[in-house]
């Protein structure tokens, strides 16, 4: 399949910031580099900012009903550190690479989805690169489809959604916010219906491909996002529960697709 002119062997990507292929290689060894072992059909880097960032103070995680709240805070080596230390290693991966960047000043893109005026930010990125540009939308915008349409008008080659929903947890002992960053982002199956709605609504509005994510944990879930209009899906939190969730989901998805072809054949025959 084709995503913005790049050939992919399948539709399952990772969610940005939910899989560190370099750390995974330290843990699982070079087996990870085998094309048939690498869990995704394209690899999306953790979001990079211009300057290095430490991220939020711990604790950074809290479990909620069928979900996870994180306040990671975009820790990364900064653009320079990334280009020097990480990019050469990521270039060894057996699949195409998508680099996730957050503007060239942090506030610039953090506010991307808040207003249509932000479209300018995408235009600036667009002019600076020949590579396809994918814009990730925030799910807290009052009207995600309008933001997606604005991104498309400004030249985005694809849009990707959803990001995590804003959430909070209290420390049962102190009764004050548990997360170092006070609030965090909710991900996982809990948000799947919200994600599916936004993906469907955005896909109905824009022409560019939509990368859908939010709580995908099985081939059936992936199938639903594609049915809702996504061109590709991404797996985030489920990779925490199963380091090769991406592979499993692609396999399950394949079985479903074959079964469905089988069924429709049977129906035709009847």
């Amino acid at each position, binding site marked *: 399949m084709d995503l913005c002119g790049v050939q992919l062997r399948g539709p399952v990507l990772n969610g940005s*910031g*939910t*899989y*560190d292929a*370099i*750390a*995974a290689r*330290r*843990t*699982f*060894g070079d*087996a*990870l580099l085998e094309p048939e*072992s690498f869990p995704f059909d394209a690899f999306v880097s*953790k979001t990079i900012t211009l300057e290095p960032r*430490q*991220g939020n*103070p*711990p*604790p*950074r*995680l*809290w*479990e*909620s*009903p*069928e*979900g*996870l709240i*994180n306040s*990671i805070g975009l*820790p990364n080596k900064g653009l320079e550190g990334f280009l020097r230390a990480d990019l050469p290693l990521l270039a060894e991966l057996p699949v195409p690479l998508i680099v996730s960047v957050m503007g060239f000043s942090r506030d610039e893109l953090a506010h991307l989805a808040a207003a249509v005026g932000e479209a300018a930010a995408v235009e600036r990125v667009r002019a600076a690169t020949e590579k396809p540009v994918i814009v990730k939308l925030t799910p807290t915008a009052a009207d995600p489809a309008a933001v997606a349409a604005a991104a498309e008008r400004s030249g985005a080659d694809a849009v990707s959604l959803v990001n995590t929903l804003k959430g909070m947890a209290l420390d049962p002992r102190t009764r004050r916010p*548990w997360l*170092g960053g006070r609030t965090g982002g909710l991900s*996982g199956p*809990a948000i799947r219906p919200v994600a599916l709605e936004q993906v469907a609504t955005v896909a109905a509005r824009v022409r560019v491909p939509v990368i859908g994510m939010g709580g995908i944990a099985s081939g059936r879930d992936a199938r639903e996002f594609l049915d809702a209009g996504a061109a590709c899906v991404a797996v985030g*939190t489920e*990779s*925490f*529960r*199963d*380091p*090769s969730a991406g*592979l499993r989901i692609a396999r399950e998805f394949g079985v479903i697709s074959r079964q469905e072809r089988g069924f429709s054949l049977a129906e035709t025959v009847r």
Partner: protein
Amino acid sequence: MRFAPSSEPRTLAPLGRRTAQVTANRDLGAYRLVSAHDASGPRDPRPGQFYMLAAEDRWGGEDGRPFVPRAFSFARVREDGTLDFLLEAVGPGTRRLAELEPGEGLWLSGPLGIGFSAAPEGARPLLVGGGIGTAPLVCVQDELGEEAEVLIGFRSSAHAAAAALFAGAPLIATDDGSVGRRGLVTELLRGAMDRTERAAVFACGPAPMLEAVRALCAERDVPAQLALESGMACGYGACFGCVVPTRGGYVRLCVDGPVLDAADLESALVPGAGH
């Protein structure tokens, strides 16, 4: 003083999550000792490495928790690939694991992280454990043998039952004096250090204990490795959730630990860890 390991004490994990079969689950005082046959895993995880565990069935009950897997040091590995985990049931995840029946499936991935490094030549290993933190010291002792001195502390005699996992006669302290000496394991450590010319400390336990050990070792310039705990979601560096502050900034405990050199820490009091 620092440990200077020749290479990272890490055994690679097979990629992905696999199913081990629970072979036994028995009481050990206040704890459970869960054994599972990890047929396709490596036979040589490094002491101090850990596994992410989840029950294959019924992971996620009332209120949708537990959701992510939980981290556990292995206490022992047997030649046939059976792993022993020592558990304390403190929440929904550990409660579910504590009731696993022989024959049930245990999802695991690992071994994960960096384990303990060898002690510097000529130094006497002192293994210092508190409560459930004694678990990874069992396999350290298995490896080091009689050379190592074991000093362990518990809340009560029910918890001190875990001492049975160690060979020889470990020195024990309990809060209530019901087993061994009354008091804290750091007092045992102080005594052992007084008796030992060159010591090297291997410690695991609750954060306040580790901080006391760290401070004591710093004071006496004794090299120490501390196996820390922090809340983890993935165990293999994917989520950036498990960071702890070190002198060099935040590190992910699951890929750069859980065993850290005490010299790298300002404090072992990790925010949000432990119960």
